[in-house]
Every structure is written in structure tokens, then in C-alpha cells.
């Protein structure tokens, strides 16, 4: 069994177009949620979101690439380039390239492309669409482009488990590196669902907040959507040490569970089982854990049930908890990847990113919530939770390098 470490990280998300800007936002407690600037926003009742602002595809790509890359792929490609550059890895060596791979999470894939082209054929009555619609919209497009750009010829696939997609992807990448199946995996997730159809669908479910995302707080009124990507280099520790790489953190364990319950309501039992599995897989005592990046969507149901599960698993006294969805919104299939950045900040700098918009303690959520401002605290180990609609849960356990 190989130990698994992270040697590169990259991101494009509402808080910044790289990791440094994102860490600054976490330290400062900056919120990226605001009025959305999208087509037909006047026909939506949900009008706030966390958009990636000032994104100009032409700053990163040529015209041929722009024709080929959905917005979600654009985010993933730029984030992956940052992660690979930081790792210092090159994949021109056949031994490495033939075994290294990619596994990404996404729920909607090229949803913006789908939305644009449905509009073209149904609303504008066009009888012809761009020839590259299918390669743009397929859920695995980002994975394919990362493998092509970086020359990764080993296992490559995409995972779609709604809001847990990224955590499942990173957990699978972890297992593949740990087992020796691949020495290096690019992993993480991406999502670009902030288009008219993407938001309209969520609107129908009536779980969206009108003003702010306030996880674990009294008077919370639901979730706020975000968009973006985060991509990491997961590498066998021996491989990283042998080349003198800077190690950002160790991925220590992974748990997965299914509620086998309801298509939208979360389950305390499923949440408890998945956290316990992650801890056991990492051989981690609950008392070691200094920070939990909660799923914390800001809905009444998730936060109440996640709190109850945390109280049980951590013997009535869980470590500090925050939900950074209050800053970058819920990136759906990409959310676990962006939230792993908050875990890296906590492990590397001893700074716990806050839960913004916190108005006061809800008796249903009796947690030590890091509220409204970042907190200094040495963190040697952390969990990051993801629970999806349909009860597919995935939790990663990490340790300080």
C-alpha cells in the first residue's frame, strides 16, 4: 500500500481564479454570492448565485479551443494547468505517462452547452446546431481534455454522484494511487450550472435561499448555487519524496456509503456511517480531527441531520466545523474539490475558513461553528463531507504533511 499525498492544486471558482486568491478570500471571509448576471435572469425567482466573475475565455484559449470547451471544461483545464505546474511533474516519460490518469467529478457536465443548444432549436427554431455540441456537452469531456493536454494515458473516467461527485472522484483517485494502480492521478471536479435552465430546475425544488447561504444558522433559508473547478495532483508519497516535491497534505482515508433511503431527504445513519468509514480507513482517532469541512448546504434538513450525525460520531463534542458554501456557493458536482482547498488551508496554515452569514446558533445544530470570521487553530487532521441527493455519501480524511 502506498501512502498518498497532494503535490499540486489549482482552481477557478467564484472566490478567485487561482489557489492564492481563494486562500485570501477564505482568510478574509469574503463572500462571492451576489446578483446573477445571466440571460433571462428576469424570468427566475432565484436571482442570486456565486458566479466566476471576470472570466474571459479568450485570455486562456484560442478560437478552436473555445469552440470545443464548455464553460465547465474551461474551468477544469485552467485549474489543472495550475495544479500540474505546482507539482513540477512532467508526463513526457513513458513509464509515468502510461500509468498516470484522471478522474473528475461533475453533475451537469456541459450543461451550459446543452442549455444554449436547446434554446437554439426549441426557442429560436433553428434546425442546425454547432458540430461540436456532443463533444462539448458530454460529462466526460473535461476528463478527456486533461488527459490529452497533459499526455496522461492511464485510467481516466468521470464520476457523477450529484453533490458528492468530486469527493467520490478524489476518493477513487486516492484508492488507485494507494493500491499502486497509478503513481499519479489528476483529480477534483468541475461544474458550470449557472445558466437559465440549470437554475430554473433548482428553483422548482424550492430549497433555494433568496438572500444568503447561512449554513447551521438560525433563520437559514436554503442553498445558493456556485460554479467553478478545483483540480489536484494526487501522488504516491514515495514517488513525490524521490523527486523532492513539495507535499501539500496527505490523503489518509476515504469512506463511501449509501442511505438507501430517499431521493432528496438526507439520512443521519448514512452520514454517520460514511464519516466512521473515512476515519477507520485512515486509522484516525476522532480526537485527532481538528477541523471538519461540512457539507453544510444551508437547507433546514441537511444542516440539522449533518449536525446530529457529527454529534454522534464525535461523542457529543465535534471539532470546529465550517461550511465554505456560504462564500463560494454550492458548486454541486464540483463542490467537494473547492472545499478541499479550505482543508489544505487549515492543515498548512492553521487557518479555518469561516461560515459566513451566521446569525446565531440553531438548537438543532449544536456545533462549534467557525462563524463569520476565520479562526486560527492548529489542525493536524481534517474531514471533508459530501452528501448527495439520492443518499450517495463520500468523505475524505486528510493529515498535515
Amino acid at each position, binding site marked *: 500500500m502506498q501512502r498518498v499525498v497532494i503535490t499540486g492544486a489549482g482552481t477557478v471558482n467564484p472566490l478567485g481564479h487561482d489557489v492564492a486568491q481563494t486562500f485570501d478570500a477564505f482568510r478574509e471571509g469574503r463572500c462571492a454570492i451576489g446578483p446573477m448576471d445571466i440571460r433571462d435572469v428576469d424570468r427566475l*425567482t432565484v436571482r442570486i448565485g456565486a458566479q466566476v466573475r471576470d472570466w474571459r475565455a479568450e485570455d486562456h484559449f484560442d478560437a478552436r479551443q473555445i469552440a470545443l470547451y464548455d464553460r465547465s471544461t474551461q474551468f477544469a483545464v485552467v485549474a489543472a494547468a495550475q495544479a500540474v505546474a505546482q507539482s513540477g511533474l512532467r508526463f513526457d516519460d513513458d513509464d509515468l505517462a502510461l500509468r498516470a490518469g484522471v478522474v473528475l467529478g461533475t453533475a451537469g457536465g456541459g450543461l451550459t452547452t446543452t442549455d444554449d443548444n436547446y434554446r437554439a432549436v426549441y426557442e429560436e427554431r433553428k434546425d442546425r446546431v454547432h458540430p461540436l455540441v456532443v463533444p462539448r456537452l458530454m460529462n466526460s469531456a473535461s476528463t478527456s481534455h486533461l488527459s490529452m493536454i497533459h499526455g496522461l494515458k492511464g485510467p481516466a473516467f468521470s464520476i457523477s454522484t450529484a453533490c458528492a461527485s468530486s469527493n467520490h472522484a478524489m476518493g477513487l483517485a486516492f484508492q488507485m494511487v494507494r493500491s499502486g494502480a497509478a503513481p499519479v492521478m489528476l483529480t477534483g471536479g468541475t461544474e458550470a450550472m449557472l445558466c437559465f435552465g440549470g437554475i430554473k430546475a433548482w428553483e422548482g425544488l424550492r430549497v433555494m435561499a433568496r438572500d444568503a447561504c447561512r449554513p447551521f444558522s438560525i433563520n437559514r*433559508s*436554503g442553498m445558493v448555487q456556485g460554479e467553478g473547478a478545483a483540480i489536484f495532483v494526487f501522488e504516491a508519497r514515495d514517488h513525490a519524496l524521490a523527486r523532492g516535491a513539495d507535499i501539500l497534505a496527505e490523503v489518509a482515508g476515504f469512506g463511501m456509503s449509501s442511505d438507501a433511503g430517499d431521493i432528496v431527504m438526507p439520512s443521519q445513519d448514512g452520514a454517520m456511517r460514511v464519516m466512521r468509514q473515512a476515519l477507520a480507513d485512515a486509522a484516525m482517532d476522532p480526537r485527532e480531527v481538528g477541523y471538519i469541512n461540512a457539507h453544510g448546504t444551508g437547507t433546514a434538513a441537511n444542516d440539522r441531520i449533518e449536525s446530529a450525525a457529527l454529534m454522534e460520531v464525535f461523542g457529543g463534542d465535534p471539532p470546529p466545523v465550517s461550511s465554505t458554501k456560504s462564500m463560494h456557493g454550492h458548486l454541486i458536482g464540483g463542490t467537494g474539490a473547492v472545499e478541499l482547498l479550505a482543508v489544505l488551508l487549515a492543515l498548512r496554515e492553521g487557518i479555518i475558513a469561516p461560515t459566513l452569514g451566521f446569525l446565531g446558533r440553531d438548537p438543532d445544530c449544536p456545533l462549534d461553528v467557525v462563524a463569520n470570521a476565520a479562526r486560527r487553530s492548529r489542525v493536524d487532521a481534517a474531514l471533508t463531507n459530501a452528501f448527495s441527493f439520492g443518499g450517495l455519501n463520500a468523505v475524505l480524511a486528510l493529515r498535515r504533511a
Partner: protein
Amino acid sequence: MNSLADTVIAILAEQALLTPSDVSRDQSLADLGLDSLGLVEAVFAIEEAFDIQVPFNANEPGRGEFDISTVGAIIDGVQGLVAQKAA
């Protein structure tokens, strides 16, 4: 009035898998056995039937502007929204 009430009751009954004659004004949604997803679907059906917007958030069903405590409260609320729309 009666036809509005009948329509609302028919919608709630359909979601609760009951016949409309089993639904009365004084019943709560819990009495009908309607869960949160069923309620969201019923609100959608009411909006479609009357072409109105019902101010309802599943995160705070008891606290919103729209009273859902009983079948009668829902009928009265829909009545108000339909009247507002006509005004």
C-alpha cells in the same frame, strides 16, 4: 369560490393518494400524509392551475408568508393570491 376550493382539494388529494371526499378544510398536511416533496409538487400544481406564484420555501414551510397549517388555510391563501392577480 367552490370551484377554487375544489381544485385545491383535488390537487392535495392527488398528491396524498386520497379521494377528494376524504379531504376537509380542517385537516393538516400531516393528517393527509403529505411529505415535503409531495407538498412541493402540490404547490407547483396550484401555481400551474391558477397561474399564480405561491411564496413558499421548503426550508421554512411553517414560517413563510403562505400559511400551510391546514387545507382551509391553503385554500384561503390561494384565494388571496388569485384576487391579488385580478386586482
